[in-house]
């Protein structure tokens, strides 16, 4: 019975909002060390699928398995502890705190120090160093002391990615990480994702619209349409499918 479990698996995962089925019986396995791109038109249910996996939303039906363990009814922080991490499509930061403090809080959570009441946070040098290391990676270190709400949108997007990198989970879910970034910032983020991918223990789920990005990064593409998983396979093969061509790429034709 020593079957290897996929790191992440969803079985018949479903959620209904009233009469509208936003995610419809999605069954899918994700293997260690792979990067899967999730594509589909706006409103297809990509973000909602992420919400079900990371726990922000409770499924109406189906299960989510992490390393073979059923986590469907676990709370968000417990799933985070188990190794699911996520960056959000709509920037979702700690607005009144500094950039460094945002990242430090993630590092602190990971070090399990949140309930330490009697030491001075600023004295935990190792946490600050780790935070600065991540900020240097995403090229935000020169903004470290700024308050997040005063940051330009592109830098907020970078910080959003920085928080996930600082968390360093087994499963990383990026929801349109480069949307709203200027052209010269995009490669920084893509290089980071590529670097994460080279670490064979990590599994990456990436919602992305830009086909060239997907081609260069993805090992596999799955297509969601009206909440249903309609295609799944190698990038070249999936991109060639008629349903993808018309439903999704129709609006953004590729210059091959």
């Amino acid at each position, binding site marked *: 019975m020593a079957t290897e479990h996929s790191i992440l698996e969803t079985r018949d995962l479903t959620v209904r909002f009233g009469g509208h089925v936003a995610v419809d019986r999605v069954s899918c396995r994700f293997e260690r060390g792979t990067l899967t791109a999730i594509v589909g038109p706006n409103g297809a249910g990509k973000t909602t699928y992420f919400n079900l996996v*990371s726990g*922000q939303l409770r499924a109406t039906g189906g299960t989510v398995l992490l390393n073979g363990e059923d986590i469907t009814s676990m*709370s*968000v*922080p417990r799933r*985070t*502890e188990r190794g699911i*991490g*996520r960056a*959000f499509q709509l920037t*979702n*930061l*700690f*607005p*009144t*705190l500094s950039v460094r*403090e945002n990242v*430090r*809080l*993630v590092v*602190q*959570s*990971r070090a399990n*120090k*949140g*309930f*330490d*009441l*009697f*030491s*001075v*946070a*600023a*004295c*935990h040098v190792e946490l600050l160093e780790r935070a600065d290391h991540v900020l240097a990676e995403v090229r935000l270190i020169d903004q470290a002391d700024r308050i997040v709400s005063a940051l330009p949108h592109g830098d907020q997007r970078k910080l959003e990615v920085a*928080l996930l990198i600082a*968390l360093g989970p087994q499963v990383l879910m990026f929801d349109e990480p480069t949307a709203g970034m200027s052209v010269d910032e995009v490669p920084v983020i893509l290089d980071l994702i590529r670097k994460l991918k080279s670490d064979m223990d990590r599994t990456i789920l990436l919602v992305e619209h830009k086909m060239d990005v997907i081609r260069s990064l993805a090992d596999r593409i799955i297509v969601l349409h009206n909440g249903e998983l309609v295609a799944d396979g190698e990038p070249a093969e999936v991109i060639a499918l008629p349903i993808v061509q018309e439903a999704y790429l129709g609006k953004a034709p590729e210059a091959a």
Partner: protein
Amino acid sequence: MLTRLLSGDTPRSGILTVFLLLILISLAFAPFLFPGTKSLETAARICIFIVLVASYDLLLGYAGIVSFAHTMFFGIGAYGTALALSATGAGYFPLVWGTVAGAIVAAIFALAIGLFSLRVKAIFFAMVTLAVASAFAVLVSQLSWLTGGEDGLNYRIPRELTPAFKLIGGKVFGVTVNGKVLAYYLVFVASLVLFLIMLRIVNSPFGSTLKAVRDNAFRAEAIGYRVVWYRTTATVLSAVMAALAGSLLAIWLRYTGPATTLSMEIMIDILLMVVIGGMGTLYGAVLGVTLFILAQTYLQDFMGVAAEATSSVPLVSALVAPERWLLWLGVLFVLSVYFFPTGIVGRLRERARASGR
């Protein structure tokens, strides 16, 4: 050393440092600098309210939780000490166990309210605290066989803390060092220690997490923090601190009643003091409390003088008549919120940052 004592949270503004030092020195030497019963009463009230308001700021300013039950916890502490002293007579033992019991009961109440209602919407928590606090106030006034009802409790405290006790025969700087002065120093030192403990808590990893929860609870969960536990712990800590402040008041006044501890008026005063001083910074509590209590205590006197001086000018003298002190306090409050939306401390720090660049 000093930075350690302040948990690295220095005032970060020259003017603020001056104000804080001024307040600290005035309170530390109050019996000698401002002799007289009224000024000593005022100084002790300021000390106790600094603890009370700082503990409320821990909840409102740091954790972003709105509670109307803070006076209930204040009252639980005061009644704990008062009941113990009334039951067993003056002594240090009942004083200590009454205080400890009050703090424990406050913690249990806070834990129950927190676990029951912090999972859901913030407004629900606020409503629950309002309901529980009102019910508690009614209960205290109904159980008059135990609590003395509306009349409250008068009791004796250890003789060393009463005016009848003389520490030394002569006078020090023209002031008799009696038990009342000792009681003042008990209040002062206890308040200082409690304040420094709270300063440590808000600057700890736990305190930093509270700010994250306040800013964005949704994201705090997504990075692994169990938000309900953080909120509940903050509620419990804040309740215990408020209860200890209540015990200090009970010891200082030798009287505990609904009007001095449980009234809605005190709850509103606490809110005003937090907002005037500046939310989310404990130094704000120090400034807010000092200004507010000084205004509350001396505005009437000051206006009396002003009214006399302007008695020949009809409209002005009517405006500054001592009966209008509450109106002016209200005006002061509105002005301070309008001009310092981040509170006095927030404003001073902004200035310091701007001039530092």
